[in-house]
């Protein structure tokens, strides 16, 4: 059973566009929802994270939208750049230091 479902699997956008990546979860005990960015040959890097007590969080060009009732959250990248081309993973976990559960990833390509 996949606890965090991520879509789409891949995404191509023009430079300046706003790619949106979606994730859905089932476990209502999850209360921490990070997004990671991974470049080829590198480990995942924490990008932005949200807790369910807020519906939106912005950090620079990255925004998380969170819908607790629908058990869904999404990543929006404003004014996307070719340097944003990477694989993005959503994740979730209950409170504390328990392990993260990851989605399968979205490969984003931003073309000039």
């Amino acid at each position: 059973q996949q606890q965090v479902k991520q879509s789409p699997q891949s995404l191509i956008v023009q430079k300046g566009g706003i790619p949106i990546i979606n994730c859905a979860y089932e476990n209502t005990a999850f209360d921490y929802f990070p997004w990671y960015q991974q470049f080829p040959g590198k480990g995942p890097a924490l990008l932005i994270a949200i807790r369910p007590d807020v519906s939106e969080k912005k950090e620079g060009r990255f925004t998380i939208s969170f819908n607790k009732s629908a058990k869904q959250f999404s990543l929006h990248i404003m004014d996307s750049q070719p340097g944003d081309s990477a694989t993005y993973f959503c994740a979730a976990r209950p409170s504390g230091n328990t392990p993260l559960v990851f989605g399968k990833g979205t490969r984003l390509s931003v073309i000039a």
Partner: protein
Amino acid sequence: GAGVSQTPSNKVTEKGKYVELRCDPISGHTALYWYRQSLGQGPEFLIYFQGTGAADDSGLPNDRFFAVRPEGSVSTLKIQRTERGDSAVYLCASSPQGRTEAFFGQGTRLTVV
């Protein structure tokens, strides 16, 4: 400060051999995690340490896999009698006490031939 360090970066081994993968977490981080990432997939949890003890090893696929963290800092993931299906990138992450953020190393790419 230094991030999570994993050695070696790459390891090629023959089927049936024993391998050890090392993780040096961020200084002071009490929680340490091992994940495995297959091509085109998200990281999959293997084992989690809180201090020296394994708090959750439910992700270890079988008894050929074992991990230790004897002094609550560096951890070693040990794989016995390697199989071709063990080929993957093994990722280590650490978190500070009481915090939820997890920081990953660059991974060890294991290839079993």
